[in-house]
């Protein structure tokens, strides 16, 4: 069991940074403050959890939580096949988090996706641009307060009419 040792280390080094520990479907979830997330992830990486299996985010607007957003890191240990979920809570007024790209290269695109869909920016990211939506897109679609049909982004395209534009010749 890698986890109890790591939790003890975190509490020793960064006091009060663990908000809660829960368990769901046999898997441990560590809820932490976002302030020293990079150091905590480094601790996880150096103590067995060497693989970032997935990275995503949650908008807690309707769910309720410690903060508006939580960025979720799914970590896996290749040696012991243990899994752990780390949830870092990000406030609404300043959605910013240090990038984990320096620890795991796979965080590069995952963080771009989170930036695109949730508007959480990652400091220290090498190339933080939108990954799926157009570059000039307005809004972050997976936020719960984003309207389902969008902010009228589709209205800006040119409308093509049939045949030759006769006004062009008559002018």
């Amino acid at each position: 069991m890698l986890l109890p040792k790591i939790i003890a280390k975190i509490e020793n080094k960064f006091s009060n940074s663990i908000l809660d520990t829960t368990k769901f479907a046999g898997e441990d979830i560590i809820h932490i403050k976002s302030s020293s997330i990079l150091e905590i992830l480094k601790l996880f990486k150096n103590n067995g959890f060497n693989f970032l299996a997935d990275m995503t985010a949650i908008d807690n607007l309707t769910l309720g939580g410690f903060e508006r957003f939580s960025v979720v890191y799914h970590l896996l240990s290749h040696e012991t096949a243990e899994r752990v979920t780390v949830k870092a809570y990000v406030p609404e007024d300043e959605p910013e988090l240090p990038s984990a790209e320096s620890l795991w290269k796979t965080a590069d695109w995952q963080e771009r996706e989170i930036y695109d869909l949730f508007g959480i920016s990652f400091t220290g990211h090498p190339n933080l641009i939108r990954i799926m939506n157009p570059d000039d897109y307005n809004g972050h679609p997976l936020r719960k307060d984003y309207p389902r049909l969008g902010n009228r982004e589709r209205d800006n395209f040119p409308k093509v009419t049939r045949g030759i534009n006769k006004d062009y010749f008559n002018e």
Partner: protein
Amino acid sequence: MKQDDIKSNILTTTLESAVNWGRKHSLWPMPFGTACCGIEFMGVMAARTDIARFGAEAVRFSPRQSDLLIVAGRISLKMMPVLIRIYEQMPEPKWVISMGACASTGGVFDTYSVIQGVDKFIPVDVYVPGCPPRPEGVVEGLILLQELVDKEKFSDYSTTLKK
């Protein structure tokens, strides 16, 4: 040449209908397949329904060589400028078939990222409903389009230069 021979060998018509006859029997499709309708369109091309019977077998993947744009599949927000560009690259005269529910109305994808019907941005001649439509449905749409082409007038395309 005997007079009877001339009678049975000469057909009088208008230039308009002769040209339209040629156009409607040589529609060269440009498939814009983005989803499962694109797979169904391969079925339309294949032996059982075989749209070569209607002169539409020359599928071109260059818009410059085709005159029938078949929008097969959902068009996302990011894809619509591409579709508009491809439509504008096609030479006149050109026609558009909107194949399937997604291309016509957005279908089940009632979200911010999917265009709710390509006819909001480009003119569409024939809508083929279905999810995806049966190959027979696409053939029906093609026949409808041929009827449309047959009724076209030169004046639809002509312009007068005032200078």
